[in-house]
């Protein structure tokens, strides 16, 4: 069974270990601004919400790509950007309605969560189990994905 990231914002303390681990895994530096997972802070509510790509079935980024640079990793189900093919046109960054594929000025390519090939470092680094990598059944993450998809009328139009 494929696994997916399960994010429970209620358990997040905002420590940013996930951002550190992600940026180190993907760029070789501890630089949260280059992390593909991002922890959003809700001051009023005293809450934090880690957020990254849900590897959605719609794959808006993949469909919008004009040069076939995004493909599905068949073992993890992740939508993965090929740096060799990506020209940096950024069409995917406006096509993704979740804002989870972004242009990196450092590399001139777009970047997104690739589930670290099946061993997501954000989940490994999270000290409170706010981010876990679990069997892709009815996880909170699925609920996230479902509620996000439901909110988009065009997602239904393709059913």
């Amino acid at each position, binding site marked *: 069974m494929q696994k997916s990231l399960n994010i429970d914002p209620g358990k997040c303390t905002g420590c940013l270990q996930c951002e550190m681990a992600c940026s180190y895994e993907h760029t070789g530096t501890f630089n949260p601004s280059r992390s593909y997972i991002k922890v959003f802070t809700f001051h009023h509510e005293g809450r934090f919400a880690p957020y990254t790509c849900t590897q959605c079935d719609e794959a808006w980024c993949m469909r919008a790509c004009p*040069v076939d640079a995004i493909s599905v990793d068949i073992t993890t189900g992740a939508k993965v950007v090929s740096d060799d093919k990506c020209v*940096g046109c*950024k*069409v995917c960054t*406006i096509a993704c309605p*979740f*804002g989870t594929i*972004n*242009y990196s000025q450092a590399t001139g390519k777009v970047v997104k969560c690739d589930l670290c090939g099946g061993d997501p470092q954000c989940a490994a680094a999270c000290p409170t189990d706010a981010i876990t990598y679990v069997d892709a059944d009815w996880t909170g993450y699925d609920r996230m994905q479902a509620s996000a998809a439901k909110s988009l009328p065009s997602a239904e*139009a393709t059913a």
Partner: protein
Amino acid sequence: MQHIIVGAGPAGVIAAETLRKADPDADIAIIGDEPEPPYSRMAIPYYLINDIDESGTYLRDPKRHFAELNIELLQQRVETIDPSGKSVTLADGASRSYDKLLLATGSHPISPPIPGLELPQVHSCWTLEDARNIIERAQSGSNVVLIGAGFIGCIILEALVKRGVNLAVVETGNRMVPRMLDDKAGGLLETWCKNKGIDVHTSCSVDAISDSGSGVEVALSDGGKLSAALVITATGVKANTDLVAGSDIKIDQGVLVNRRMQTSDPDVYAAGDVAQGVDFSTGNFEVQAIQPTATDHGRIAALNMAGQGDEHHGTLNMNVLDTVGLISCSFGLWMGVDGGDSAELYNPDEFQYINLQFDGDHLVGASSVGKTQHVGVMRGLIESKIHLGDWKDRLLQDPTAIMEAYLACTQELSYQ
């Protein structure tokens, strides 16, 4: 089922792939008249600066992809269509019959009415063949005049600067990309370009181009004159509707289609730049010559051709642009609606701008300059018509908090 797709751009290719998934046994043919494998015009700027070779512009691996999906790829020009006989005639005289036909014929650059446009130094930048010509002529150190600072003009502007030419840009609008960005955002782009040494002329048009012996002279409406080795025109595109011009199929700015991408002939569909389909924001039927719309159109048309489709809610107009390193984007009704509120953050010293437009407590339009992170969520907020509630007030205070607003409105922040 015999499906014929005329046009091998993104709309045509996505349609063929979607048809194959929806109808594994159908006969599917893509007929395109350019002497190249299916490629993406979006990638041309990166070919101009040698970031990629020609094969890097290809939409799919041409050697394997289409054969693997059993999609016939025909390099031919379709001369006529006969909707009553349900057939198309090719340039070589052959005729092909169809059950469902998709017109994905794209658009062509408009030639502005300027004397001298026929001179050999004047080119448009639209096809791979145009790009080859420009590479040959836009040598480092040469003077190049770009007519038009719209979306396409600005995309090739970046490539021209990187090729090391001395660039002048002439735009009739009062700002750069006037159909994509407002005065403030367009102004930021202009200042940015001028700081990079580009000679930008807005509210200015070209009166005439004449042979100067060594090159051409470009006469401007403000009395100025520019000398150039190469002139590139990028003054907009127009739908390729010639194929249906003699038929009963209804045309306006493009081929008119309903929410199933069906033309006035129920067996003929249209998608992409050629199609005048429903706009998400206005409900009006408009031509949106943009890549995301082409791919959406292609998919929706194909599903409906296979009898599995639905009515589409409309495509959202959106653009993203990299102007010599300054990134801008806009979505939907970025100019706002009557009686709607707006939120703005404008920091010209840092070349940063974000503008949100609301109708009640929905986001209906947005634009930004200098922002690369999470811009897509502006689409999400607009297209999902989320009621922002309290978050609208927060966004009026801090328009940068769009991701927080989206998360707070779509997800429980705690799953207890």
